[in-house]
């Protein structure tokens, strides 16, 4: 049984479209998207309210989750990295997490067949 992983990428929200389309074209249509806020090396942005400035250090980010078998992980990482890239601070990170089991609710299929 092939090992499975969840590739979890935190990207800039405005890059979602590109990442999503690239994954689709490469044959990975299935994914899950979560709105998150994040802080990294990127400094927050200065906002103001009633004449007073303050720093919002948690910036809106988008988390993209794709679960695949081990052999696809590297390809997905490359895809995300190339499409989510702007070169500026705040581009985000990719985390790869092991997955023990996958089940498709509709059919009951498991693991490889369920992906």
């Amino acid at each position, binding site marked *: 049984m092939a090992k499975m992983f969840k590739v979890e990428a935190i990207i800039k929200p405005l890059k979602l479209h590109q990442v999503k389309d690239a994954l689709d074209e490469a044959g990975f249509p299935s994914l899950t998207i979560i709105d998150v806020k994040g802080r990294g090396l990127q400094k927050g942005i200065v906002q*103001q*309210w*009633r*004449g*007073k*400035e*303050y720093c919002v250090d948690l910036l809106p980010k988008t988390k993209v989750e794709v679960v695949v078998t081990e052999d696809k992980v590297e390809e997905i990482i490359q895809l995300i990295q190339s499409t989510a890239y702007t070169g500026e601070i705040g581009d985000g990170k990719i985390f790869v997490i092991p997955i023990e089991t996958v089940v498709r609710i509709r059919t009951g299929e498991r693991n490889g067949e369920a992906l």
Partner: protein
Amino acid sequence: MLKNVQQIGKLLIIICMVLIALSSPALAVTPEENAASIEGVQTALTFVWLLIASGLVFFMHAGFSLVEVGLTRSKNTANILMKNFMTVVIGILVYWAVGWGVMYGADAAGLIGTNQFFLAGADNALWNGWFFQMVFAATGATIVSGAMAERTNFKAYLVYCVLMVAVIYPIYGHWVWSGADAALLTGAESPIVKAIGVASHDFAGSGVVHSIGGYSALAGVLLVGARIGKFKDGKAIPIPGHNLTFAFLGTLILALGWLGFNGGSTLDGNDPYMNLVIVNTFLAGAAGAVTTMLITWMKTGKPDPSLSANGLLGGLVAVTAPCGSISNWAAIVIGIVAGIIIYAGVMFNENTLKLDDPVGAIAVHGYCGSWGLISVGLFSIGIGNGILADAAYAAEVPGLFYGGGISLLLIQLVAVLCTIVWAFGLSFVIFKILDAVIGLRVSAEEEIMGLDISEHGIRAYPEYLMRED
């Protein structure tokens, strides 16, 4: 001889009228009948005008609600909506039962009205007058509600609201608008007016409505304390409101309402000076908004939306007293100064006094209200002069800049003092008592949870996922 002529005249007329009356029903209209009809129409026009103006002022309560809701966090929205809503309905009932009588009932010592409770003996003219005054009455409490938002006990607020409409507002109102000979600030028999030699003037309530609300709010904010998290190491921390669209819609509704607020305050649908009043009102508001926007732009490099909106309100509040007594250019100057006061006042309250007024009510209504009263003493043209040649309801004498000397300015300053002492003082005492009896502030836990859940078991927007802090 004259008497004879008179008698002959009368006789002739009577003959004429009899002949006319007999000759044809279609021709049977006398000038006197016409005059009576005309008076009827004039009265009807006043009724219609004041009812519509009242409607616009009533609608201001929606404006206040939206501004307050917009500039605070969503976890307190339902509570703010309820407070503003109950303020109006309580205002209606209490001003009917008590407030009107205290304000416009038969005068006692120039200080308080003493009859017409429950509108006993009212006729249509009185109902008309009551309705217009009533929509003003609840405004003071609403101002307080905004300044104390996000941490005040609902029950305590309701009790305060009753007292505001029954006592605080109408007693001060009696001193200025009752028309009583001895009315403290405006009656010819009042010792103050006698001493200074001229009556105070507050056209539509920079003082009566706004300052009273604003300085009451000051007392409340002082006693209830700042919201958790508002100050950190003595530095004010911004707590952004949750919905600017509501705040701006509310501001525009308030501006619309001012058309009725000031325009209606001639109390006469036939007084052409309502036009001057309304033009001055909007000029001052506009000047205030532009001024505050420019200041914030200079200070932080970006024009600030909610302070600019406050700037408009500041200009409107300030011009409320002088709007019927000044020229257009003076209205603009008054608006500009109000715009400055808004910025300076909000900063002063937060940075120096360490007061937490989420919506800027103290600066808008308190400080700009006072400036409005003072500006009468400076810019008043005086009835009978220039554009005020035929004016009926304006400051009687010219102000300082129009060669009227210092007297008008003096009595206006006295009025400012009265609003501060009365509103701040009395509200301070009332809030102290309420704090002891009911508790003025919700618990820290309730405040953090949000008053919507703690006071009403509800969320204003249950479907949206939103951060709690």
